[in-house]
């Protein structure tokens, strides 16, 4: 135990320090990829309107005609001093974009995870208990289909089915709620709760349901399969046999012994799924017109907005790394077998 305690802090420090070169490599790759791709922020914005001379003047104004190395060093220097700059296409500070839109992605992904776990774990458990039955087969097929089905297809189908029922199908809240609720935390769900505006919190929650269920379905496919496999493995363990031999009812054997041990790898996978969730969030946000960072990222990619894309990709990367480290820590705490 003393060895585990000693190695975990060192592991955490190493992981945190590794963020810096990782971000630098990522930034450099994104910088190069964006510039290799055809077009630039000026051509995306006013191409088709201005002649070559006017476009050249606009590029000059935007500093896009400077040597690549100068642009690169300028940008890296800015990031190093935590000046992420402003978007080129709509002149917004990058940090403002993250602040104003990050909350929507946060609540969407958290909500999706809640649904994914709420759907995936019980179904995985049921499939494991009813192994090789029709129930097992149906649940496994459901898991595969929900994972494989494209999110935008699932989302559009959900919209077509749900919209006639009067359920909100787009955005994070009604326009009035967004207008009346002051931004304190910039997480609208929280701001609505603390605002005291009647109906605001319910309104925001209602708007969350469809996108969270859609994204949650994608994730649930992973958890169904994972819980099922891990449960089946746990059920083969000696300690389970011993429990059965002591005459403990099967349902208690599963609940108190096999199931808990089957959940440990799920925690690890949750961390790994953060990256999947974020990429899924991009498509989900697009489908439901959700005002999150994913939607903003696509918008800025369309606009060839170099600084915006670089800034947002960096932010996503930092989030993924932080969540991964946290998951490793939790893993080490709950599973004494884990060593770093």
């Amino acid at each position, binding site marked *: 135990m003393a060895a585990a305690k000693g190695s975990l802090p060192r592991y955490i420090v190493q992981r945190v320090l590794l963020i810096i070169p990782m971000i630098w490599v990522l930034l450099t790759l994104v910088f190069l990829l964006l510039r290799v791709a055809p077009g630039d922020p000026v051509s995306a914005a006013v191409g088709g309107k201005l002649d070559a001379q006017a476009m050249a003047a606009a590029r000059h104004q935007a500093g896009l005609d400077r040597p690549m190395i100068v642009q690169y060093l300028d940008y890296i220097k800015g990031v190093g001093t935590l000046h992420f700059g402003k978007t080129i296409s709509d*002149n917004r500070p990058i940090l403002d974009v993250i602040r104003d839109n990050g909350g929507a992605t946060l609540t969407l992904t958290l909500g999706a995870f809640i649904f994914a776990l709420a759907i995936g774990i019980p179904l995985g458990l049921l499939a494991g208990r009813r192994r090789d039955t029709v129930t097992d087969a149906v649940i496994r097929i459901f898991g595969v289909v929900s994972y494989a089905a494209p999110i935008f297809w699932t989302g559009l189908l959900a919209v077509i089915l749900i919209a006639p029922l*009067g359920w909100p199908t787009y955005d994070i809240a009604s*326009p009035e709620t967004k207008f009346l609720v002051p931004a304190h935390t910039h997480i609208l769900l929280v701001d609505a709760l603390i605002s005291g505006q009647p109906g605001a919190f319910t309104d925001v929650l209602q708007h969350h*349901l469809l996108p969270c269920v859609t994204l949650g379905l994608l994730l649930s496919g992973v958890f169904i399969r994972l819980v099922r496999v891990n449960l089946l493995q746990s059920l083969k363990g000696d300690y389970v046999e011993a429990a059965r031999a002591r005459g403990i009812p099967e349902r208690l054997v599963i609940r108190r012994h096999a199931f808990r041990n089957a959940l440990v790898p799920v925690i690890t996978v949750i961390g790994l799924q953060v990256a999947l969730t974020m990429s899924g969030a991009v498509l989900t946000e697009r*489908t439901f017109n959700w005002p999150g960072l994913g939607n903003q990222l696509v918008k800025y990619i369309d606009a060839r907005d170099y600084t915006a894309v670089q800034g947002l990709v960096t932010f996503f990367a930092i989030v993924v790394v932080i969540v991964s480290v946290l998951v490793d820590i939790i893993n080490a705490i709950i599973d004494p077998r884990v060593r770093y």
Partner: protein
Amino acid sequence: MASTGALVLSLAACGSSGGGTGNNASGSSWILGTTETVTAMDPAGSYDFGSWNLQYNIFQQLMVVPAGETQPAPDAAQSCDYDNPKQITCKLRPGLEFSNGDKLTSSDVKFSFERNIAIADPNGSSVLLGSITDSSNPDKPKLADGAIETPDDTTVIFHLNKPDTTFMKVLTSATSSIVDEDVFPADKELPDAKVIGSGPYKLAQYKAGEQAVLEANPKYQGDRKAKTDRVFVQYFSDPAPLKAAIDSGQIDIAWRTLSPTDLNDLEGNSDVNVLKGQGSEFRYWVWQLGTKVGKQKAIRQAAAYIIDRDAIAKNAYDGTVKPTYSIVPPGFAGQKDSFKEKYGATPDVAKAKQLLKQAGIKTPIKIRLGYTPTHYGPNTVDEANELKSELNGSGLFQATTDDAEWERYQTLYKQNAYDLFILGWYPDFLDADNYLTPFIRDGGFYGNNYSNPKVNALLDKELGETDSAKRDKIIEQLQDIVADDVPLIPSWNGQNVAVAGKDIQGVEQTLDPTYIFRFWMISKKG
């Protein structure tokens, strides 16, 4: 899982208040949904529909184009007149105020133009102010010395650096919006949420990429009185959720941009009206005269004989666009269907064949058609394929199509990658010149290598001609030359289309070629 299910049920029990028209705080507000994006609220920072449409509602200009009309009418100015082709004098209405109570004077007007030129935002539209700009130092453009004179608080005199009869129309555009010199910085843009103007609405809230909330400006003075206290504009990143939102009544109006398929589908919804007004969107095929094929006039004219615009409108756009036979859209002063006069309204393959034979050109002619698949909407692919089949069907051409995404497309068409390529256009202001100078002066903005000294001379002449009848004649002449030289082939004009709930009034009146969505004209029953 049980607790999640309980949550869902409890929310469902709260009813369907999440969207729909019953969501409005008061009966006097309505919700507009659009896929347009806003670059900047500051007039110095934008050159796009999304930004300009908010600016038309928040700011005043000296002159405006009233709904359904084409000629400027007073707004902040009670009059603006040409003293000569290089000078315009405007008299402001007395007692104008910004929404914050600051007085609006001639000094604000001058300041507005001066800062727009000086800021020279790459995303901005200061290029439209060329007639009052000193560009001797390209790195620091500025208002030309003496270009704007303000002898008193209500008089503004523009001294243009060249005869320019379109400048009056420029004064109606959002680039000429009047800003408060005590609020807006002279050398940079004001943050979006802080903009104030003197227009019929003021900005109450702006969440970038999400929504803008406008409230009626009690200090507005002019003819554009708001009928609605509060307007919500919601921004959609994709047409699919926009269509779903208007279809299910979650928004009151959807405007720009729904596909022809979506519009046809919405025609079947008894809760909404699909409203169409005259538009000025222009789609055209440009010849690249730098290629072996493009530089031969007989080939260009032959293709002009063959193109079937009706088939394009029907097969590619479900009949939602109107064939056009001129570089200048119908309704503009001086407009003339020159291509119809010269080539007829329907295809004439025999004449095309004869023309090519007389020119000694062997057929079939290999020709590369270029298009961009997403920038102008997915139906562009259908139009390109339709034109290809028309050309190939004549037996005179062997057409192939090639496409590239917008950013790359803009480079490729200048590099002779295509013989004939498609582009689209929206006017900056409602004047025939805005369909002429950008296209046919020295290769146009698209660099197609077309240059005709006679055309350039006529363009200079019409820009300096103050007699409208004479100007119209020059414009007609230009259209005839274009029809003969065929540097481009006009294809269709789009309509200005919106979808609105049955309880919404005033939308149809604002759908005109300016594409200004006049919030002040619109109201909701109940």
